[in-house]
């Protein structure tokens, strides 16, 4: 049983190098020439990137909080009030998850312009505030919770919102944590829609700033890779600390299929 695992181990080790090497290389280039942090300092002082970093933090934080709040409300509603219209809403979530997003690129762009949101924070935030996958996740999780506590609270005179925030939310913490990480990850890395919905440098989030920096000028790789590293480090850090929850969150959506 022990011997056949050595080839497996060696193969996996070789592949792990193949997967990690490009990142080491990115960090290596970002520290050149020599071993210096100057590129990082330049990048964080350069208005274009520091602004993009702020935008990414702000937009991602608001969206993540919104995703949690709305998924908790809607997930609870769909789990505990199985009316005909709610069953329809549940099916709509599954349908939306199956529709490729590119079909709505053009009309969403037009809509954002019509609403006067083009090139504002509204366009970067509002379309993503309610996450269908998040609602699905919370609905499934709340369905698995016992209703007795909620009923007892109801008899004691607690309102629905009180029940949601002081009884359901603490019980649903694992699902909320998984959703928070997933929202952070997806929105921090989101490129296509922020790219389409904004035009000014002041509203660029990090992925957009990185992609546009490249098309600007002859490429200054050490600085570009330093900025890329700045965009990667937060996700990497969150992932390394919360690996288990991330994997649970990412696979939860698939499990229910």
């Amino acid at each position, binding site marked *: 049983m022990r011997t056949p*695992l050595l080839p*497996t*181990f060696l193969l*996996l080790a070789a*592949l*792990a190098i*193949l*997967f*990690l090497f*490009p*990142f080491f290389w*990115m960090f290596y280039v970002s520290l050149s020439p020599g071993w210096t942090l100057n590129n990082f300092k330049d990048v964080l002082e350069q208005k274009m990137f520091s602004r993009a970093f702020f935008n990414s933090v702000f937009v991602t934080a608001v969206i993540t909080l919104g995703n949690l709040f709305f998924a908790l*409300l*809607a997930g609870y*509603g*769909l789990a505990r*009030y199985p*009316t005909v*219209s*709610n069953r329809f809403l549940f099916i*709509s979530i599954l349908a*939306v998850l*199956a*529709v*490729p*997003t*590119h*079909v709505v*690129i*053009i*009309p*969403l762009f*037009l*809509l954002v312009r019509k609403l006067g949101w083009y090139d504002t924070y509204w366009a970067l935030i509002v*379309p993503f505030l*309610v996450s*269908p996958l998040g*609602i699905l996740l919370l609905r499934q999780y709340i369905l698995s919770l016992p209703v007795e506590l909620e009923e007892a609270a*109801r008899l004691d005179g607690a309102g*629905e919102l009180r029940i949601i925030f002081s009884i359901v939310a603490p019980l649903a913490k694992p699902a909320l944590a998984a959703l928070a990480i997933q929202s952070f990850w997806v929105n921090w*890395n989101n*490129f*296509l829609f922020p*790219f389409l919905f904004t035009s000014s440098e002041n509203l660029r989030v*990090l*992925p957009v700033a990185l*992609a546009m920096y490249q*098309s600007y000028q002859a490429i200054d790789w050490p600085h570009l*890779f330093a900025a*890329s590293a700045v*965009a*990667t480090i937060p*996700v*990497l850090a969150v*992932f390394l600390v919360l*690996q288990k929850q*991330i*994997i649970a969150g990412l*696979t939860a959506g*698939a499990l229910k299929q």
Partner: protein
Amino acid sequence: MAGKNTGYLLPLPWTLTLLLIWIFPLVWSLVLAFADYNLLSGELNWIGLENFRRLLSDPSFQRALWNTFLFVIGTLPFTTLFALLLALALNRPVWGKNFFKASFFIPTITSLVVVALIFTKLYSEGSWLYRFLGQFFNLPSGGFLLSDKTALPSIMIMDIWAAIGYYILLFLVALQNVPQELYEAAKVEGANSWQTFWAVTFPSIKPMLFFIVTLNTIKSFQVFTEVFVMTKGGPLGSTTTAVYFIYEEGLHRFKMGYASAAAYLLFAIIALFSYFLFKSFKSESEVLAPAQTKA
């Protein structure tokens, strides 16, 4: 108090999002697909099927569809197969498997823009990879992304590398859910590992395999970010994919109707693929069902 309307109020934000972000745009783009819409003047002229007729005879759209098809064929089988093999390896009690799992997954959690930038440099003429491979092969001058022969395959290789981690995780979840009794039963009956895989493992992970292939198909048909960052559809249109075409026509040249028609055509193709995937998996699982009960 639990009012009669609570059940409707709680999911209201989703109802609004559904209407605003999905249903309304989907209907709107269907309308646009049959019209000639000028963004600047706001003029909308009905032209019926003209957009679709023009698209089907537009060589750059044909090229974009062909490139997209090549991309799907060139990545999907490899991503799925490699992910399954790696998941099988990681499912064994091998030393350091949590470290390996994390290593394979890191490209997936990284922004695709960052991944594309790293590979843009890696594929460029002066890079160590280029110089290393140049000792054995005749490489295109200017790097891999500047030749119409190597640009698309280069992006495909990167995509397999970048996407595989997520599918490994999904396969691992499926593998961990295979009932242990089935393995024990297979062992008692003296099945070798190959037989055990086909009789026990494969039927059990089939729903996940179906899910992965479908998800991966939908995603692969929508490849855009890599192309935008690395090649802008070039050289000579060799990496213009369907979504890149939609972006160029609709949001660069502002031919909204034309681009919407292209988006709906692509949507129809994806739906058709998903339908056939669904059908083939369903009929096959009926055939395999007796084998599963036997094991």
